[in-house]
C-alpha cells in the first residue's frame, strides 16, 4: 500500500527528517486558514508518479493565487483518480536536488540504498544515461545498516562538509529506520533538497508498505480503509480474499493462482479476445469465494462472457462448481460462462455443473477459444 505524500511526510517528521512546513486541506473553505508564507506548492494527494506532468503540482506566489488553484484542483480527477486532499507547503530555496531511497532488491535479496546528487524528476533518465551517478549500496538484512556505510555513501555522492555529512547520515538512518520499523517496500525522497541555507529538506516523500505485514502495524492498517489506488470492486474483492484488477476488455477471467490466471488471459488474447480483468481466487478457495468472484463479473456490464479456469490442487472442483451455480442463482444476469476444471473432485464438479447445462472443458485452449467465439457471437451452446 502506498501512503499519501502527506502521510509519508508525517512519518518522516516523526523520525526527525526535515520536511517543508505545510498543511493538508480537504475543503475549499479551509484555504482561508492557511498561514504559510508564500511562495507555496500545491500538491494533489494522489499516488501517481506523473502527477507533476498531469498538472497535480502547482506553485503559487500569493494566498490569492492559492485560493484560485485550490478551487481548480480540489475534487477534480487527475490520472483517473479523484483529488480529495491537497498538501500545501512552503516552497524551498533549492541549491541542489539529491535522490535517496531504500527498497528491496529481489536478485540480491537484500535492502538497497540508492543515492544520487542528481535527484529530481529526471532521476530515471540519469539512471539510464549516467548510471555511475547513482550509488547503489546493499545492506545486510541481518546485521543491519552501520554508520560507516552511510558515511561512505555520503562521500560517494560528493558531500565533503562534515556537518552536512552528519545531517545526511542522520536522514538516511531515519529513512532506514522507517523502512525496517514499518516493513516498507519503498522509502524514497526525491528530491531530497539541499537548500541555499545549507540544510537538507525532504521535499517529496514516498512510502510503500508491505500489505502482508500490515497485521503488525495497526496504525497503518487503519489508513487502508480509505479509497486509494483501488476501485470499489477491487476493494470488495480484497475483502473476499481474492485479487481483482479491472482491465479494458470484454471477457471476464477467473483463475486460481496468478500464473495460471495470467496465462489464461494471454490465451484469450491469443485467440482474439480481450480480457476484462485479472481475478485470482487463490489457493483452496471455497464455494463462497467463487460465488462472489463470479458475481462481480456477472454484475460488471463491460463483461460479455466469463471464462473460469481452475486447476485443482488444493482447490476442489466441486466447491468451484457450487460457487458458480450459487452466483447464477443470486444474480439475475445471464452471460456465456465457460468452465474449465481439472483436478481434485473433477467428476463431482462436472456432475453439479451439468445439471444447469454448463459443460466442463478439459482443455484450456479449447475453453479459451470457445469463450472468444461466444462473445463474438460466432457460437452457442453455453448457458446464456
Amino acid at each position: 500500500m502506498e501512503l499519501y505524500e502527506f502521510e509519508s511526510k508525517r512519518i518522516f517528521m516523526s523520525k526527525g527528517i526535515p520536511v517543508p512546513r505545510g498543511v493538508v486541506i480537504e475543503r475549499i473553505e479551509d484555504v482561508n486558514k492557511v498561514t504559510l508564507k508564500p511562495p507555496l506548492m500545491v500538491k494533489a494527494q494522489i499516488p501517481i508518479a506523473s502527477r507533476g506532468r498531469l498538472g497535480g503540482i502547482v506553485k503559487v506566489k500569493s494566498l490569492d493565487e492559492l485560493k484560485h488553484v485550490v478551487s481548480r484542483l480540489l475534487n477534480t480527477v487527475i490520472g483517473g483518480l479523484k483529488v480529495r486532499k491537497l498538501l500545501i507547503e512552503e516552497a524551498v530555496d533549492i541549491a541542489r536536488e539529491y535522490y535517496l531511497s531504500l527498497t528491496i532488491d529481489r536478485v540480491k535479496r537484500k535492502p538497497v540504498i540508492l543515492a544520487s546528487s542528481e535527484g529530481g524528476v529526471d532521476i530515471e533518465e540519469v539512471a539510464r544515461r549516467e548510471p555511475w551517478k547513482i550509488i547503489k549500496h546493499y545492506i545486510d538484512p541481518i546485521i543491519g545498516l552501520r554508520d560507516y556505510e552511510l558515511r561512505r555513501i555520503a562521500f560517494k555522492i560528493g558531500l565533503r562538509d562534515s556537518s552536512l555529512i552528519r545531517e545526511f547520515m542522520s536522514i538516511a538512518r531515519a529513512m532506514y529506520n522507517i523502512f525496517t520499523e514499518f516493513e516498507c517496500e519503498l522509502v524514497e525522497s526525491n528530491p531530497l533538497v539541499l537548500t541555499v541555507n545549507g540544510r537538507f529538506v525532504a521535499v517529496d516523500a514516498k512510502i510503500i508498505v508491505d500489505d502482508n505485514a500490515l497485521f503488525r502495524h495497526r496504525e497503518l492498517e487503519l489508513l487502508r480503509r480509505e479509497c486509494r489506488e483501488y476501485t470499489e470492486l477491487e476493494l470488495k474483492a480484497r475483502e473476499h480474499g481474492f485479487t481483482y484488477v479491472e482491465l479494458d476488455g470484454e471477457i471476464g477471467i477467473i483463475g486460481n493462482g496468478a500464473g495460471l490466471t495470467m496465462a489464461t488471459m494471454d490465451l484469450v488474447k491469443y485467440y482474439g479476445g480481450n480480457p476484462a480483468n485479472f481475478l485470482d481466487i487463490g489457493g483452496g478457495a471455497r464455494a463462497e469465494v467463487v460465488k462472489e468472484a463470479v458475481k462481480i463479473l456477472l454484475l460488471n456490464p463491460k463483461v460479455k462472457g466469463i471464462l473460469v479456469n481452475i486447476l485443482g490442487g488444493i482447490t476442489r472442483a466441486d466447491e468451484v462448481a457450487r460457487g458458480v451455480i450459487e452466483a447464477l442463482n443470486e444474480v439475475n444476469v445471464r452471460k456465456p460462462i465457460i468452465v474449465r476444471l481439472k483436478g481434485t473432485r473433477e467428476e463431482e464438479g462436472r456432475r453439479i455443473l451439468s445439471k444447469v447445462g454448463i459443460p466442463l472443458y478439459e482443455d484450456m485452449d479449447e475453453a479459451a477459444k470457445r469463450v472468444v467465439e461466444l462473445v463474438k457471437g460466432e457460437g452457442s451452446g453455453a448457458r446464456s
Partner: protein
Amino acid sequence: MTILVDKNTRVLVQGITGREGSFHTKMMLEYGTKVIAGVTPGKGGLRVHGVPVYDSVEEALAKHPEINTSIIFVPAPYASDAVYEAIDAGIKLIVVITEHIPVHDAMKFINYARMKGSIIIGPNTPGIISPGEAKVGIMPAHMFTKGPIGVISRSGTLTYEIAYALTKAGFGQSTCVGIGGDPIVGLDFIEVAEMFRSDSETKALVLIGEIGGNLEEVFADYVLKKGYDKPIVAFIAGKTAPPGKRMGHAGAIISMGTGTAQSKIEALTSAGIPVAEKPSDIPKLLARVMKG
C-alpha cells in the same frame, strides 16, 4: 538422479495439525514420500495420519535424527519463526508453502539460512516433486510423471498445467521445482539450473516465468554468459496482465525496463531460449530443441 528431493528425503511437516498441513501430509504419504514427523507446538503426542506430532523441531529431531527436509504450512504471522526453528535445528532443505509472509521476514530468514547452510524453497511455493521418488509440496501428483525434463517455475497452478501438458505429450519430469511466487525467494532460476546442470537424469529444462522482477532476465544473461549444455524452453505468463505496482523511482532504477513479459521474452530469446506462445506449445518446442 534428481535434484533436491529423492528417495532419501525424510520429511518433517511444520504446522501438521492445521487444515492444509494435515491434508497434504496425507497426500504426500499417499505419494510415497517418507513423512517422518510433524510439529505443532502444544499438540505434541498427537498423530496425524499416523505421523507422530511433537511440540518442537528439536524434539522431533531428537527422536528422528534422519529428518533432512522440512515443509512449512504454518500461517504467515508465525511462519518465519518456524523457518528459524528448522534452520537452527540444522535442517538443510526447507520448503515454505505459506503465502503472504511479510517480505522483510522472508528476506531475513533467507539470508540467515544462507549463513547457516540451509536451502529455502519459497515462500509461496507449491513445493518440489521428483516424480516416482518424493513429493514435498502440494501439487496434484497425478499430473506429474517420471522422465528427463527439469522444470523450474515461479508459479503454482500454471506449473501443474504445464507439467500435465508435458506428461500427456510423453515428457516425464526429473524434478519440478516451484521456486515460489513471492518477490524474495530462497533459490532463483540460476541456482536451480545449476543443480540441474550436474544432474545426469535431466536432459532439458522448462522454465516457467511471469511478469515482475527480473529473475528471468538475469537467468537469460547467465545462460548467455556462462552457457548451458542442456536445451531450455520457457514460458512467460502475463503478456496481457495489468502493469505491476510501481515501486517509486527506485523500482524503475533497479529494474531498468525489465519486468514486463516482453522484456523477459526478448532476453530469453536473445539467449537462445525459445519461448512458447502458450502453455500447450511447450511440448512441441521441447521436442524440437531436444532433437536439434
